[in-house]
């Protein structure tokens, strides 16, 4: 048995002249939760449908070490949770969940115990005789999970399963999906356009853009070490500042409108213009008092938003056109600084992400 549940090699897919996916390789490790993340039209859904067998790509699809490129969906050991669940409205919860097992001619008593097992897993055992139309969105979601998991698939595919739910239930369901993953010990491939969902859920995130893989990594890597500007902007909030890079030998320098910062040279960096991503929470901000300290620079607050657990300031940096978003964690009794306040800012150059412009 291979250590990967899915191995994709040289996968591409085109609709007419439109390239949905351009030659990508991807391995999904056994028992991990891998998210396919990206804006709409990036090819994430197409990629999932290729794994499920609903689209025929060029390239090679291995599932559990076996070539599945030409297999129709019904012969693949994967099951899918559809975006709008696609629960069968003419069947009740029990029959929906039992659907896959019945097709495999599983004995009746096994069906009964297996359906009970997965309904327990998704905590819906008391709902087995309900009609689908009698379920809430969250319950329908659980039934969809149960209907897929009862077949003990090698890989469970989830196509934006939370998109149709409202915010509160969505958060709850995310934790549920995590729990169900742990208890079912199956590989999950999860498609979403929501970076928060990806961060909370994933062992690894695959960021897709325009039919190609932008970056693969665990959530922390994706957040703190984006390799491209697209990746930096996609995860969380960030400031993009134009600068110049100068490197010689083993030392490098990033020149920004408000200071010069040391930055170790990388292969991908050549001397010249660069974009620097600076996370708002890495900039410390305080009311200006006296002369600026070493490495600090001054600015004026343009705009303040108090969000409760954090305060976001938009600060216009003095003697430049740069406006920086800075985030501060308020403590009880602290006052947010009103627009117009002169402030002092300090950056942490080690958190900079420098990308050639």
């Amino acid at each position, binding site marked *: 048995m291979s250590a990967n549940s899915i191995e994709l090699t040289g996968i591409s897919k085109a609709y007419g002249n439109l390239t949905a996916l351009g030659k990508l390789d991807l391995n999904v490790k056994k028992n991990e939760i891998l998210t396919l993340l990206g804006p709409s039209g990036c090819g994430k859904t197409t990629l999932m449908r290729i794994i499920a067998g609903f689209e025929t790509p060029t390239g090679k699809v291995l599932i559990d070490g076996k070539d599945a490129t030409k297999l129709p*969906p019904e012969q693949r050991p994967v099951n899918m949770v559809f975006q709008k669940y696609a629960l*069968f409205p*003419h069947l*009740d919860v029990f029959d929906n969940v039992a659907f896959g097992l019945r097709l495999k001619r599983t004995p009746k008593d096994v069906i009964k115990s297996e359906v009970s097992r997965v309904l327990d897993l998704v905590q819906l055992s008391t709902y087995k*005789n309900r009609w689908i139309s009698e379920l809430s969105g969250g319950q329908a979601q659980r039934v969809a999970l149960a209907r897929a998991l009862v077949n003990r698939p090698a890989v469970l595919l989830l196509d934006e399963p939370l998109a149709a739910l409202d915010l509160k239930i969505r958060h709850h369901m995310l934790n549920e999906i995590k729990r169900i993953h742990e208890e079912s010990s199956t590989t999950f491939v999860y498609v979403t356009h929501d970076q928060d969902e990806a961060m909370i859920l994933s062992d690894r995130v695959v960021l897709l853009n325009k039919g190609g893989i932008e970056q693969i990594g665990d959530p922390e890597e994706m957040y703190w070490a984006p390799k491209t500007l697209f990746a930096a902007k996609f995860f969380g909030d960030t400031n993009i500042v134009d600068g110049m890079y100068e490197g010689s030998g083993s030392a490098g320098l990033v020149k920004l409108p408000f200071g010069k910062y040391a930055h170790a040279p990388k292969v991908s960096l050549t001397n010249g213009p660069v974009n620097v991503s600076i996370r708002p929470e890495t900039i410390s901000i305080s009311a200006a008092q006296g002369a600026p300290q070493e490495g600090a620079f001054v600015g004026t607050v343009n705009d303040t938003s108090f969000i409760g657990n954090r305060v976001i300031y938009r600060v216009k940096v003095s003697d430049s056109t740069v406006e920086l978003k800075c985030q501060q964690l308020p403590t009880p009794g602290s006052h947010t600084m009103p627009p117009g306040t002169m402030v002092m800012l300090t950056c942490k150059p080690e958190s900079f992400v420098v990308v050639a412009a």
Partner: protein
Amino acid sequence: MTRLFTYFYMLFLYAPIGLIVLFSFHSSPSLSLPFEGVSLRWYEAIFNSYDFRTSLYNSLIVAGASAVVTTILGTLSALALMRMKGRAKSTFAFLNFAPIAMPGLFLGIALVILFSLINLPRSLVTITIGHTLFTLPFFVESVRSRLEYFDLSFEEAARDLGASPIKAFWLVTLPIIGPTIAGAAILTVALSLDEFLITVFVTGTDTTLPLLILSMIRRAVDPSINAASVIMLGMTIGIIGVAGLVMTMRRRRIELERNGE
């Protein structure tokens, strides 16, 4: 005010039907008030008429046969429509619909010419073909709008869970679209039962119920026409009623089975 209008509207709609029903039970041959007493003599007369029984039988055969053909063709066409997109879909939908807009007269003549070209003797078969041509667009049109809401991911889900395309159709698609199909099939029967214009052209020596009623009216104003009309009306209402009953009973049976489990 609105309520008054509604009453008036209902009166306008149903008063003629009410009158026919009333006079079909009239004990005298007069078609005017005052009402002189209740009797079933016109029903007796009509059921004793050989012509009436034959034409009723013919109507039922034709309605049944054209409903079967229409349902099969119409379902196939609707299934194709569900999968089509964009230009092809609107063209196909238009071509399906167009015969409704065509005058029945035109269809009748066209069919007569066609049948004589291919040497098909005019009979109940030609009437069935004519009726199918007439009912098919209605069938597709009434099914199409409902099936727009059929999510193709139902079929994909079935495939994903291990069903072959044919099994997915039998286990998922057909049960879901079944009630819609059944409703349209019933509409087909009702349309066929009182189709007149095309039938006049394509019939040979056979008479259907509407043809019989017209020929009776041309001979003399015979009150048994009222009885014949009421029987037709009763059949139409009956068909719709049975359909409704079958549907609720099916649901109830499933629920009973479930409770017994």
